[in-house]
């Protein structure tokens, strides 16, 4: 409170000095303006990209997903190929029993890129055999009013039922048709549509596909596809009990490595030591992305940091010039009772006022930069970036400018505080 009483007149004084030397103040602020604007704009755009990638990784099942796929035997085991049974439903049971870290296991049997036909209309999409566990593993669902997903009973009975991706529906039925209950043909077999998967829409920054068509939009690749019971796929299309792979969801992402190791041991034991499978996670993808993100932040932050540093030098320069011009004023203030600390506060406040005003202007400029970048990215590139400014970044930018202003103001303010009043009053 007491300090504020001392600072308040100093701030008013600082604003007055700013007003009295508009051009000079604006020039001294330019560094801060550019620094804050680039800092805020860059962090915003990078964060937009970050958000987009998070969505991408999430769409691939997130960090808690482990994928087990069929793999060629390594060279040293090639002679044992006859013994390899591939991945089967027995592996699902074994993992379920021996790897408690795994919450859900989704066996997947790829049928292929198939033609779906109804009443003369047709479209092609990937058809995969799955179980009810596909939903939690893929983080998907069926919205109310859009039917249901494949159930355990469908699997037991090898029902000829199919769930469609939301992008497939308009291609097959046209707009505004409820596909549930309709019967479509795949390789001459009749499948009853029982549900439609939820439509994935990207938010924030979007990945735009150059050849995207209506109905799927940005996330078309995730919204296509058709799903039938895995037992149906194996019995009626594939002709054996092999799976193309397993999707595993673990409850605790922190224990990803344990889960991977346990899964590997179980699989090796079950497959009599044959390495006819591969285990992958999204961790590496995420790690690569984190490195890119860090590199971006570091380099852009460096650019912004240099501008802010230059801005600080500009402020210091102007403060020193201002103090030189106002030596007499300093003498007068001291003669009427100002302490060194009063003058220190006065000139420090002046530097802070310059930097705060500069920082605020910088924020306005950053809004312009972000709007411009959004415009350019969405217009010129197939993959556009839509980034939005948030208050945290803006206040951080402003805080940075204040810190720079204060640091830059310390030396000039100390000089003012240490001036000898007699010398200062004699100064012409």
């Amino acid at each position, binding site marked *: 409170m007491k300090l504020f*009483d001392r600072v308040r*007149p100093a701030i008013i004084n600082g604003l*007055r*000095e700013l007003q*009295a030397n508009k051009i000079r103040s604006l020039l001294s602020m330019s560094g801060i303006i550019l620094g804050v604007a680039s800092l805020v704009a860059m962090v915003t755009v990078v964060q937009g990209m970050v958000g987009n990638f998070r969505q991408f990784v999430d769409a691939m099942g997130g960090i808690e997903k482990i994928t087990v796929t069929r793999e060629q035997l390594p060279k040293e085991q090639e002679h044992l190929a006859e013994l390899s049974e591939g991945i089967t439903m027995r592996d699902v049971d074994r993992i379920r029993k021996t790897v408690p870290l795994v919450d859900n296991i989704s066996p997947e049997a790829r049928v292929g890129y198939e033609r779906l036909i109804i009443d003369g209309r047709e479209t092609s999409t990937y058809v995969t055999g799955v179980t009810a566990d596909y939903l939690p593993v893929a983080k998907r669902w069926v919205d109310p009013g859009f039917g249901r997903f494949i159930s355990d009973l469908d699997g037991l009975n090898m029902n000829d039922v199919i769930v469609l991706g939301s992008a497939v529906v308009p291609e097959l039925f046209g707009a505004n048709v409820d596909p549930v209950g309709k019967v479509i043909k795949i390789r001459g077999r009749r499948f009853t549509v029982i549900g439609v998967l939820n439509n994935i829409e990207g938010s924030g920054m979007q990945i735009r596909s150059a050849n995207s068509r209506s109905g799927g939009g940005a996330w078309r690749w995730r919204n296509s596809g058709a799903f039938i019971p895995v037992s149906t796929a194996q019995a009626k299309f594939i002709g054996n009990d092999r799976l193309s792979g397993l999707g595993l969801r673990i409850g605790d992402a922190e224990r990803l490595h344990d889960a991977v190791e346990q899964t590997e041991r179980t699989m090796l034991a079950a497959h009599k030591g044959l390495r006819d499978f591969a285990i992958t996670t999204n961790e590496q993808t995420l790690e690569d992305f984190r490195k890119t993100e860090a590199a971006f932040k570091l380099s852009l932050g460096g650019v912004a940091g240099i501008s802010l540093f230059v801005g600080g030098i500009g402020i210091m320069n102007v403060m020193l010039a201002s103090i030189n011009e106002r030596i*007499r*004023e300093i*003498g*007068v*203030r*001291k*003669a*009427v*009772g*100002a*302490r*060194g*600390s*009063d003058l220190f506060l006065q000139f420090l406040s002046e530097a802070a006022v310059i930097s705060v005003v500069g920082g605020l202007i910088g924020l306005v400029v950053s809004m312009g930069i972000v709007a411009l970048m959004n415009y350019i990215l969405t217009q010129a590139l197939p993959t556009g970036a839509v980034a939005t400014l948030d208050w945290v970044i803006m206040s951080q930018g402003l805080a940075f400018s204040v810190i720079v202003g204060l640091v830059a103001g310390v030396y000039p303010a100390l000089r003012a505080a240490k001036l000898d*009043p*007699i010398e200062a*009053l004699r100064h012409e």
Partner: protein
Amino acid sequence: MPALIAIRGLRKAYVMGDETVHALAGVDLDFQKGEFVAILGPSGSGKSTLMHILGFMDTPSEGSIVFDGQEVAKLEPDLRAWYRSNRVGFVFQSFNLLPRLTVLENVALPLLYRENSDPAANAAAAAIALERVGMSHRLDHRPSQLSGGERQRVAIARAIVGSPSIIFADEPTGNLDVKNVDRILDLLGSLIKEGITVVLVTHDLSVAENAHRIISMRAGLVQEDRTK
């Protein structure tokens, strides 16, 4: 009644290159409350050094100063600032008003640096001080809009706003035309009625003659101390 200021054996030496300059070479003086004193002397006589030391802007090399019963010869800078703010007023030859502040703000300036400074109370006190010097009609003007005589009256208002014990006026009429000289000297002289000690520092005998007591200095020593 004890003196407001009693100085004994006051010395001030500056080292300038190889030489040591003795600006004050042993000064003993007493200043009474409500006295109108002139310190007269040519440049280099030590009168400015004496004013700076008595005005708490500088410290002596040797000697003692008792101000209002307190030994103040060797005070820390912040304590000297307190005395400047609370006990002393200055009037300068070149007015030394701050160009960006209004007349009212200039006068209120010494109060800004006091403990528990309150803007409204400061402005009120400044208005009273300006009324005292006959400048109430110019509160919101800038110093550049005033004549020399007016500026010096504002400067006097600034010197008295904090109810000081002593005012030092350093060649207060040096930059004024004849018409204004008497007016300013009269104004300064009238302050003693309020119990303020007024010290006129000048090299001009005709100005010094206005005071009731003239202390003549030469080469850092008091040459003559004459009360009329």
